[in-house]
């Protein structure tokens, strides 16, 4: 039995296999419609989420399985002070697999150490969110046709943006990839998140200038400056509008650039860009569902 807490829990071969499964699901969904018949997914969401919870639920339903769970801590026994260990031991009696989101970092790991069924970390505070990274990877694979020889720009909140750290870690495992990290000084990528780049000798540059970096990018991954990651409201207000993508800024971009964003966005990508064929952030949402289908099948060893 195996759980997934971080994208690092998956080898390159496993990620490739998940991408292949997801591609096959997209190509012939009817073949997968009964794969999880009789299986139950428990979504244990201790904080609000639109995309991730519904994506997991849709994924299980499309595989022919069922869904139970809760979508806020107040409607679970956590409100009475039950520990995560006790909660997941209980849920393991009802469900075949658990998807957990929790505001505290490491909570899904605690769950995986105590559950009798696989646990998928569906976001633990600012820490890990591996299925978002899987969605990102399938998007890159489908839109660029490869993971290799790409110049990846990551922009916005690179300090607290967990999706950026995971994507950088995952993409740095492929040949010929380089990074441009675009952020205000206050929100630069922390040194520990750059370690995989240093260890693997991957080229990267850091800049505060989005416009200057634009022409060379194959991928532009935008992130939201998140209010909940700041202790200080003044810092949030001062930095949140630093990097807003507008049609004007895209005039120097490559024709085959892909623009990605983990969503939800606030105002960092102008809605005027939504109609641009290079905008891929709603495709990411769709692809995320397929990767969650593939991941649940892998963890439950469903062929």
């Amino acid at each position, binding site marked *: 039995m195996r759980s997934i807490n971080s994208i690092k829990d998956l080898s390159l071969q496993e990620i490739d296999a998940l991408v292949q499964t997801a591609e096959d699901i997209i190509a012939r969904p009817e073949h997968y419609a009964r794969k999880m018949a009789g299986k139950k997914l428990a979504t244990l969401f201790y904080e609000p989420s639109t995309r991730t919870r519904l994506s997991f639920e849709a994924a299980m339903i499309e595989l022919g399985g069922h869904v139970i769970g809760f979508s806020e801590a107040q409607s679970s026994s956590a409100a009475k002070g039950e520990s995560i260990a006790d909660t997941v031991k209980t849920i393991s009696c009802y469900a075949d697999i658990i998807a957990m989101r929790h505001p*505290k970092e*490491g909570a899904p790991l605690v769950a995986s150490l105590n559950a009798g069924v696989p646990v998928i970390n569906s976001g633990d505070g600012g820490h890990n969110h591996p299925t978002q990274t899987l969605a990102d990877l399938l998007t890159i694979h489908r839109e660029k046709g490869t993971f290799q020889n790409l110049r990846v720009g990551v922009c916005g909140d690179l300090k607290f943006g967990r999706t950026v750290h995971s994507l950088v870690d995952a993409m740095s495992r492929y040949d010929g990839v380089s990074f441009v990290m675009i952020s205000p000084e206050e929100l630069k990528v922390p040194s520990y998140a750059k370690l995989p780049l240093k260890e693997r000798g991957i080229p990267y540059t850091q800049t505060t200038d989005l416009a200057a970096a634009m022409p060379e990018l194959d991928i532009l991954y935008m992130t939201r400056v998140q209010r909940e990651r700041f202790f200080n409201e003044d810092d949030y207000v001062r930095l949140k509008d630093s990097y807003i993508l507008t049609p004007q800024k895209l005039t120097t971009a490559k024709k085959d650039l892909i623009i990605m964003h983990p969503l939800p966005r606030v105002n960092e990508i102008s809605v005027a860009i939504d109609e641009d064929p290079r905008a891929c952030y709603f495709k990411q949402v769709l692809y995320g569902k397929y990767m969650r289908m593939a991941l649940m099948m892998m963890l439950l060893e469903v062929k």
Partner: protein
Amino acid sequence: MNIDSIKTGIVIDHIKAGDGMRIYNFLNLGEMDCSVALIKNASSRKMGKKDIIKVDTVPDTDLNALGFIDPNITLNIIENGERVRKYHPELPERMTNILKCKNPRCITTTEQELPHVFILTDRERDEYRCLYCESKAPAL
């Protein structure tokens, strides 16, 4: 207690002068019933001054964790009045309930009964990270 010789216990030598009390507290020696000697500012050819601790029993605590406090200290294990082992404690791969995670976003802040576990992530830099949130370990 005869400070020069103990029957079964440990002698922690080459403690940086001034750090003796930290190790005394870390090993909870104040709570022990056995004889304990803390010698401060002993003269040392190598170090100039050093602290030494002698304990007339082998404490239950993972003594290798002393390597995290100060990798240069020497640990002598005494049995039947004889020194049977002398070594620099190696950094343990894992420390449980020795350090507390200080990250306010870590799950250990709300789940009070969870053990605080730190994993050695970089031996060259003596770097430990919390098992749960991967924050760097605080200094002891």
